[in-house]
């Protein structure tokens, strides 16, 4: 008996002559008509205050991280930074919904989720600084490298989750994507594999309304991106992506269902990218200031502060402490990145293969000789 033997009711007589309809009921797979919210609803009262405080802390520190990194790009200390400013609730909730043993598969915009998972905040920026492709140890941190080619990390998450399930390990994989990424073939193939394999994987789509300059209306005509789930036979959930406790609840539920053998979930989080796509982008070319302004009113930190304060759950000490922690982090970032990175050019050849080919050995010798000659000149 294997794990896969019983993934689906084997023979489905519904597809033989006499079939009268779908193999399963689509209704439970469809997202609710209203995005899930906790802030401003009675659910807030029932939420663990410690969780709320931890979410708040991470939001505040995360915002500062985003801001400092953005500033560092302006100073030329980072090659590029795709900020998640405005999307911190998604980033933080994603990290917190996962256990130690779970794996995160972030996209290029999800540095903050990586940091919030516990990866060193500076190592997480190595790619974007430009000194190495990945600064952290994916195995030790159970965090895949930031994926640049869109949606390509989604099948990786499925494969890892599948392998873990085969091993009997209670590991869940969470893949993070953007709204634009849902248009790629890899998104489709990953969701289908996940569903067919019943893999313990959760897909979190941060729908921030744009793929660089392209608005969602030109990306998809679907009722919602969460509605894509039904085409794979998995549940779709729609959640307010700036409501951190709502995200945490929806994600945790999906992670736990996956862990207990219930299969994958597709979650669409409605959010907004406050900064330009990256420091190289000019967002004024494709969106209006009032749109940004409207979303600033729906800022994830603002919402938390407003609702926690209203519920009497936010005290000044906490606010001050979070702010101080944020400033500490920013200072550490400045210190680190204003120093020049130490790099070994010979590292270029070290990890192409387990053993370099004869050709690579020759090329490494060539570069070593060049570097030696240069060093000579400089002495």
């Amino acid at each position, binding site marked *: 008996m294997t794990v896969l033997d019983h993934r689906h009711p084997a023979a489905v007589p519904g597809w033989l002559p006499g079939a009268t309809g779908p193999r399963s009921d689509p209704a439970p797979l469809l997202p609710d008509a209203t995005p899930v919210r906790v802030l401003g609803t009675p659910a807030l009262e029932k939420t663990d205050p410690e969780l709320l405080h931890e979410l708040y802390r991470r939001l505040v520190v995360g915002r500062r991280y985003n801001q400092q990194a953005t500033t560092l790009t302006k100073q030329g200390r980072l*090659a590029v930074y795709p900020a998640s400013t405005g999307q911190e609730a998604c980033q933080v909730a994603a990290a917190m919904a996962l256990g130690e043993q779970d794996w995160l598969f972030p996209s290029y915009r999800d540095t903050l989720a990586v940091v919030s998972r516990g990866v060193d905040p500076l190592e997480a920026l190595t790619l974007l600084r430009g000194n190495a492709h990945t600064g952290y140890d994916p195995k030790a941190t159970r965090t895949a490298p930031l994926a640049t080619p869109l949606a390509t990390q989604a099948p990786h998450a499925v494969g890892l989750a599948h392998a873990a399930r085969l091993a009997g390990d209670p590991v869940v994989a969470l893949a993070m994507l953007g709204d634009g990424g849902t248009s790629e073939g890899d998104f489709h193939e990953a969701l289908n594999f996940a569903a067919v394999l019943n893999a313990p994987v959760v897909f979190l789509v941060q729908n921030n309304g744009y793929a660089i300059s392209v608005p969602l209306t030109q990306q998809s005509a679907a009722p919602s991106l969460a509605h894509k789930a039904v085409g794979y036979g998995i549940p779709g959930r729609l959640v307010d992506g700036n409501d951190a406790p709502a995200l945490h609840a929806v994600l945790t539920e999906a992670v736990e269902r996956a862990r207990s053998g219930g299969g994958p979930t597709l979650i669409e989080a409605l959010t907004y990218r406050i900064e330009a796509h990256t420091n190289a982008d000019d967002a004024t070319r494709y969106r209006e200031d009032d749109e940004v302004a409207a979303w600033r009113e729906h800022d994830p930190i603002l919402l938390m502060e407003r609702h926690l304060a209203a519920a009497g759950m936010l005290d000044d000490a906490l606010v001050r402490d979070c702010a101080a922690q944020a400033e500490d982090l920013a200072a550490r970032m400045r210190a680190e990145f204003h120093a020049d990175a130490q790099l070994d050019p010979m590292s270029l050849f070290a990890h192409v293969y387990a053993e370099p080919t004869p050709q690579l050995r020759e090329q490494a010798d060539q570069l070593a000789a060049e570097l030696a000659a240069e060093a000579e000149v400089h002495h």
Partner: protein
Amino acid sequence: MTTATPVRGARTASMAQALNSALRDAMQADPAVHVLGEDVGQLGGVFRITDGLTKEFGADRCLDTPLAEAGILGTAVGMAMYGLRPVVEMQFDAFAYPAMEQLFSHVAKMRNRTAGRLPLPITIRIPYGGGIGGVEHHSDSSEAYYTHTPGLHVVTPATVADAYGLLRASIASDDPVVFLEPKRLYWGKTEFDPALPVEPIGRAVLRRTGRSAVLITYGPSLPVCLEAAEAARAEGWDLAVLDLRSLVPFDEQTVCEVVRSIGRAVVVHEASGFGGAGAEIAARVTEKCFHHLAAPVLRVTGFDIPFPPPMLEHHHLPGVDRILDAVARLQWED
């Protein structure tokens, strides 16, 4: 950033501006020309090559597509089947890879498959190569994948005038053209006049004459080779520089004439050397010019490694010194 205002006559322009003009002029000249890709509309493309086209010609002619490269190229195939001349923008080199099946199995083969009844006049613009400090996946030199695929033309300009002229010629071609734009040459400005014709696709151009050896190159490496040739004078070498301009068709005749007359050659490109376009050039030239060669044709290329992170890319990219080292190895003592 380019200006969206069309200018006539001789002008100072960057390659980015010349490409923009070429698109605009092609769209004006032929209503069948349609541009499509990611962010090519309102944004004008991440490199602003399509700047102003949607404004001038409407979203029907310059279309922001959903984010899916196979879908983009596959849609372009269908548009071409109906008689249009699609110009597709792939946002960066590595982001063309999702479209490889459409490219290899359809774009390259449709004319042949249908005995000429369904030609696909599609131009696929791909910003390529390094030298701009791009993070991973933003600096690949993927030309060898295309040159090895029968049915595709592979064109890459190295000058502002060629950027304009070759792009116009590519769009006018009845065959699919992979049009590789050297990113790091986008911004340098020179004088050029779009009214002056350039050599056609398939013709190599000698950018500098010389009698000691010839550097055979294309795209982003042309300026590096010209610089190397200049520097070589100090060493007593008089280097010619040949710009291939199109890899397919390959201008065997010109290349062989030059090599035969000089007797020594170095091929220079950014892509990894192993199985790169330089291998074909070296092998072909050697086969055709064997007894005229005083030394083997050498290659100066990127290493056989994934493209490095920004801070290390200068070690990977062929530079003046590495070219001169190769020239020094051309067995001058023989």
